[in-house]
């Protein structure tokens, strides 16, 4: 969301980098899915293949919103990988000054329909981007694992949107939180923050601003797709970005498992229980 609060945002990256005297964090802009996949999984241990299938910006794209990066270990906890942003991949304000880019692009129907599971109906998706990668897990791995970080120039409770899909189905339910609406790690009101302030999940501060995500292979030995999605919401100005890297396969999960959100029946049951609780409370109050 577009807020009026001052945003120092990405400068956190610089502070971290300066403190550690690390090598310069280098971003190479590219919207090429092939190159992105190669950077996402430079050594896809345990996997038969990792192939960049496509990128989708929900319409004509004028700049490289995506890119690859190197020398990100100290900054992100990811040595190298990819950046998926809602602005210019190489101009997000990694310096002292926040930089945002407005492309003024509202996502196409096709894009919006795909993302429907992660967004509140009626909220527009702007300057959106999606990267689709095809993974052949072979028969050696039951899980794929990758490091994920998030950064934003947004401040406050409202943020931009992130989606994680496996074969088109949403898989963004991580440790009881949904990896989408108002991303919980950005939910620090009135605080300027950058990646070094990332808190996830559930307010648990991490040593590094990225964490290891694991996804169960849908069908061992069968190729499947993962879609990573990011979008500005409400505005098309204040940018956010996903940082991903070090994708590998494993027999058991190496990180926090991202799963499907609970079935509607579960919610219905919970809603029913909640209704009973509310009704019981009302009855109790009336008795008083």
């Amino acid at each position, binding site marked *: 969301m577009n807020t009026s609060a001052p945003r120092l945002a990405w400068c956190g990256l610089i502070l971290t980098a300066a403190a550690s005297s690390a090598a310069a964090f280098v971003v190479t802009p590219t919207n*090429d899915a092939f190159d992105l996949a190669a950077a996402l999984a430079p050594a896809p241990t345990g996997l038969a293949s990792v192939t960049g299938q496509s990128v989708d910006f929900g319409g004509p794209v004028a700049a490289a919103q995506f890119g690859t990066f190197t020398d990100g270990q100290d900054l992100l906890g990811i040595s190298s990988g990819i950046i998926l942003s809602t602005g210019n991949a190489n101009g997000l304000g990694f310096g002292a000054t926040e930089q945002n880019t407005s492309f003024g692009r509202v996502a196409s129907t096709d894009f919006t329909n795909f993302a429907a599971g992660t967004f509140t109906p009626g909220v527009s998706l702007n300057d959106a981007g999606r990267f689709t990668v095809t993974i052949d897990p072979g028969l050696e791995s039951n899980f794929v694992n990758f490091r994920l970080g998030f950064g934003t120039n947004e401040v406050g409770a409202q943020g931009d949107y992130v989606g994680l899909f496996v074969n088109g189905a949403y898989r963004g339910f991580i440790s009881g939180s949904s990896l989408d609406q108002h991303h919980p790690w950005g939910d620090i009101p009135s605080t300027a923050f950058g990646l070094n302030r990332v808190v996830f999940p559930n307010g648990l501060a991490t040593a590094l601003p990225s964490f290891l995500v694991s996804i169960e292979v849908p069908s061992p030995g069968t190729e499947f797709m993962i879609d990573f999605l990011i979008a500005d919401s409400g505005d098309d100005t204040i940018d956010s970005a996903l940082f991903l890297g070090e994708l590998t396969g494993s027999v058991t999960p190496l990180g926090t498992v991202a799963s499907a959100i609970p079935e*509607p029946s579960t*919610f219905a049951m919970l809603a029913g229980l909640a209704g009973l609780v509310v009704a019981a409370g009302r009855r109790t109050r009336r008795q008083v």
Partner: protein
Amino acid sequence: MKHLPILALAALAASSSLLAQDPGRVPTTRLFPTGNVIFFHPDGTGMNHWFAARMYFQGPDSLLQWDQLPNMAAYRGHMNNTLIGTSNGGATTHAFGHKVDGYGSFGKDGDGGVTPPTDLFINSLSGYQGSLMRQAANAGLPVGIVNDGHIGEPGTGIFLAEVGNRGNWQEITRQIIQGRPGFTDTKPWVVMGGGEADTLPTGSTVLHRNHNQERSQALNSTTSLRTDSINLETDWDTQLVGGIASPANPVVTGNETAHIGTDNAIVIKTRAQFDALVTALNTNANYTPRVLGLFAYQDMFNDRNEEDLIARGKVTADAVNYVGPVNNGALGVRSKASRIVLWGDVTGNPGHNPPTFAEMTDVAIRILDRAAKAQVNPANRRFFLVGEQEANDNFGNNDNAVGMLHAMADTDKAIGVARAYLAANPRTLILTAADSDAGGMQIAAPYRDNVDGGPVETAGTVIPGLINTNTITSNPAFLNLGQFYFGFNSNNATGSTNLPNIADGLEGRGSSTTSGGTLMFLSEADANGKKMEFGINWAGTGDYTGGILSRAAGLNAGLLNSTFSARFDNIDVYRMMHVSLFGTLLNYPSPTTGSGLR
């Protein structure tokens, strides 16, 4: 957490929409990576052809190169007005992305050979005024075509020519080399195949003779079939390369050998010249000549059935191990090398032992790779190659089983060449698609298996080595030997005899005499070491459809198993190639988007 119920319901809705029955028809704004495209058109090949080739050359449990293309989808080849893909209509759809009149179209929609003519110019699905290959070449990408038939065969010719009818060989050949009328087309980098008869001015003498008596011309004629004064070989040989005129070498046929290795634009016609080119490429890693290869008067393969070729003396003693065709051979000594000359002229003639399709593919890839990597503009550092093995189709149309099998083996080697290239150059799409199933062949196995090295049948029954195609009851050459025979009767209507279906062995169907048979093909060993016999039954000599499989590997190949898993047709072949060359998956055309008329 307050959003979760909404999310859950929305996610379900999204999931169901994403699992759409036909994702290949959903418009998309997705952008795909680009790279090299190698399109193989193994003309006239269904899964049946590949199965036969696998059994014969590798064994039923083995893997062809084709088997190792990991992505696949069933291919639909129907045209605008016929349910079976024609060579010219299918290739037009592959090259332009529009279904067209299947009978006459050749880079256009309609038939210029009917009265009144109906042929109309069309744009590609992308809106470009020309084929996908013309779009690529004119954008600065090196392109090439390879065919073991005439270079103007539809599967390759349509990518570079737009004419009223496939019979207009002269103009097709001229457009391939000089470009289309009214356009300033960039020349292709590599063109190799047959078709020398259409490259020299009227009255000229060409190098290769018309030994297959094609184009209604006299047997062994060496007279050019052009009716104008255009010398396409000179045009090729003297073209500007990088702004520098190629030396005006003598274009006397067959006189280019001395320039191979130094000249940047060459015309080659013989095995010796081809080998010299290979040597030059091996010697100089920077040598990237523009190559026009013309290895036959018309087709490089010998477009006739086995019996006809034998009758014409197209046999060789090279295949020393062959013991057929009579019923006196012992199993295990049947050589895979046929004594029938299937490609090229007989020994002693310039057209003898021409390069194979796989060899030409290898050279084409090597040259196009160098040309692409040398492009000044980094965005153009990719190439587009279309390779058609026409022999698969024409041998099938001739019911020439041994020819078809050898053509399949050649195609498979070419796929192996491309796979090796892909291994080192992953930004490469290999895509295969045939538009029809030539001859409708099926594999016929003996009633009682006759296993090489297995138990010998008892007296009075089949003895190994006696299984013969003239024991297939549906074969016109059927010979009832009172033995175990193939029980494949065909449409045995009441009161009628069996309708004949040709059943081929090593040298065709044979004849109905005890000495006039032709031995069955002998497979390579299965996983248990057994070799078994089989014959090839033909449904006819036409093009059929129903069992065609497209396979792919490399860049964007996964689309076959995802976006196109439900439906993959001839338009999608164009879309697959376009997305890999230019990055956008064009929307499938609809009646409202028109047929692409220019």
